[in-house]
């Protein structure tokens, strides 16, 4: 396994190929375009299809059409494009069509600061589409992890027949790191559930398996069935029956619940920490160094790095933070995930939100300065 120096976006493209990607549709947008460029090169050579569509709505539309035909399919974009994809993210969730959507975060709202880094799409990933819905969003923090997590994103998307969002910022997208890419074994790739019933008039594509996941066959396999963005019953037929709607929504919510357990958080020097940073993506890299420096100066600091932002596992979060006194949630936004931590924190934990805007990542010095300032105010002592 040769060592290489590659960017986050290239790692994402390579991870997708390793996961078995056969279809990519996308629309150019910085800072994600290198993913499309790499796949335009790689896919035809790997018996796959690459197509550049006319906008982001059609990009995700084409991905969903291809996925229904049996392809492992993905698109990649950035904030403004991610906004345009929200309707189809909702559609994919409700109709249970596997897909991976990469959102390389840049400063928003609107065109914002193209293309300085941000972590401002956390809530967009959660609630961007209208209506209540279940969401899976993963956050890698390094180039090698982007590679691995792209594969994980496909695994979850296929197994649970759900859209999976891979969120990372512009720094990780363009940063180059040394990697030794290890393609996964065949057995490490999860497939979408197969229909357990025979084709025929009684076939129910939306009858769920034990993992609460619909078992749609691919189009063209001899099954005749209907896929719609309307609320539907187990036959896939439109319904307005409130009880059927509630049952469907509960099932979609329930099926993504295991995800945080499959992709556990990173716990760095956390066991005896009473000063804890919660950070993800590039910010976690900075916080990690701040933890080491605080430890050198005698502060029992630690880092909790979620690798799944959505869905939240409230039990996991409160258990991991249970020993801490002060939790600082550092993120390049106005505190989008800090609200989550505050909501599920144990009663004895004080949660502080430290956001940073403007398109610059945190520096270690900033986090250390914050720690000193708060310690001086007695923040670690309740």
């Amino acid at each position, binding site marked *: 396994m040769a060592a290489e120096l590659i960017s986050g976006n290239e790692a994402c493209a390579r991870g997708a190929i390793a996961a078995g990607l056969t*279809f990519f*549709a996308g629309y150019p947008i910085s800072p994600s375009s290198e993913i499309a460029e790499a796949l335009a090169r790689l896919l*035809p050579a790997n018996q796959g*299809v690459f197509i550049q569509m*006319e906008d982001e709505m059609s990009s995700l539309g084409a991905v969903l059409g291809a996925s229904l035909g049996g392809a492992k399919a993905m698109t990649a974009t950035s904030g403004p494009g991610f906004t345009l994809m929200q309707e189809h993210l909702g559609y994919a969730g409700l109709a249970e069509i596997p897909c991976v959507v990469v959102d390389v975060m840049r400063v928003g709202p609107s065109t914002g600061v193209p293309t300085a880094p941000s972590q401002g799409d956390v809530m967009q990933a959660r609630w961007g589409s209208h209506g209540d819905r279940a969401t899976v969003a993963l956050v890698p923090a390094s180039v090698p992890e982007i590679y691995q997590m792209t594969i994980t994103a496909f695994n979850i998307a296929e197994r649970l027949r759900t859209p999976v969002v891979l969120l990372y910022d512009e720094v990780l997208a363009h940063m180059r790191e040394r990697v030794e890419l290890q393609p996964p074994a065949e057995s490490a790739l999860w497939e979408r559930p197969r229909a357990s019933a025979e084709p025929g008039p009684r076939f129910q594509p939306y009858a769920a398996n034990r993992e609460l996941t619909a078992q749609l066959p691919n189009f*063209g396999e001899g099954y005749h069935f209907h896929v719609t963005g309307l609320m539907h019953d187990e036959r896939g037929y439109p319904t307005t029956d409130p009880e059927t709607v509630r049952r469907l929504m509960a099932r979609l919510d329930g099926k993504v619940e295991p995800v945080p357990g499959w992709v556990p958080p990173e716990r760095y020097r956390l066991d005896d920490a009473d000063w804890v940073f919660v950070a993800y993506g590039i910010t976690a890299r900075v916080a990690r160094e701040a933890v080491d420096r605080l430890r050198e100066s005698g502060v029992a600091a630690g880092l909790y790095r979620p690798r799944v932002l959505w869905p939240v596992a409230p039990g996991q979060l409160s258990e991991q933070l249970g020993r801490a006194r002060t939790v600082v949630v550092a993120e390049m936004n106005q505190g989008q995930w800090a609200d989550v931590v505050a909501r599920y924190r144990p009663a004895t934990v004080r949660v502080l939100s430290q956001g940073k805007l403007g398109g610059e990542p945190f520096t270690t010095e900033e986090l250390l300065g914050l720690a000193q300032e708060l310690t001086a105010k007695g923040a670690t002592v309740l």
Partner: protein
Amino acid sequence: MNPGKALLRPDMMPHILCPGCGHGIVLNVLIRVLARRYASLDKVALVAGIGCSSRIVGYIDANTLHTTHGRALSFATGLKLARPDMTVIVVTGDGDGLGIGGNHLIHAARRNVDLTCILFNNETYGMTGGQLAPTTVTQAYTTTSPYGNRERAFDAALLATAAGATFVARGQAFRPDLLDDLLDQALDHRGFSFVDVMTDCTEYFGRKNALGGGSDLLFSQSRSDVEVTRDLNEWPQLQDPHGFAIRETLAMGVLHESDRPTLEAVMGLSGYRRGEG
């Protein structure tokens, strides 16, 4: 008995269409053509957007996909490129395909993916209550043009031709015999085929413009006789209550046909069965 009847999903009935709506006639023609052409619909997918017309794919027992408003062609493009072995038919309406989805229509035509797009053109947004559409003729009344439409209507066939569609036709619900032939030719064609089908919305468009009931409205769209299969140029000039002409004459039949390699062929996709070029 209608040979296409076996292709319907009886448990999806009753359908949502209003009395007097021409969409059912188009559906009828479509299932007759499908029944004649395909021994099985295992490899046939029908992809639709949002609106009255788009609902009809659910009534056909095949691989059916009811997508989002305006985006059916993008789903169909992905499906066809992933599964070139399948026949992919897109059902859309004039608001769906020319309003919110107009961008996807011109790009699908430009790409020449082997899709057949059937656009049900009733000159209004029926499902939302009869609003102004990009196909509503000038001066016509709708719920959002209470003083008459100030804009000009799209000619969908000209648009598709200019954008690069390799087969373009126009039919009408009033003449199922002619429409049958046009849909058949469209499905025969290799490449992006587009059929603009004039149909009616009697509940909203007909009522707002005092055009009478369903049959009156369908008849108003045509004075054709069986001899004419192309370039049917003489639609009646109807007047609205203030004396304005609200009908434009549109050509009917096969309006454009050309030969250009499909995107699937250029990409060299394996499994592409409908032809070499």
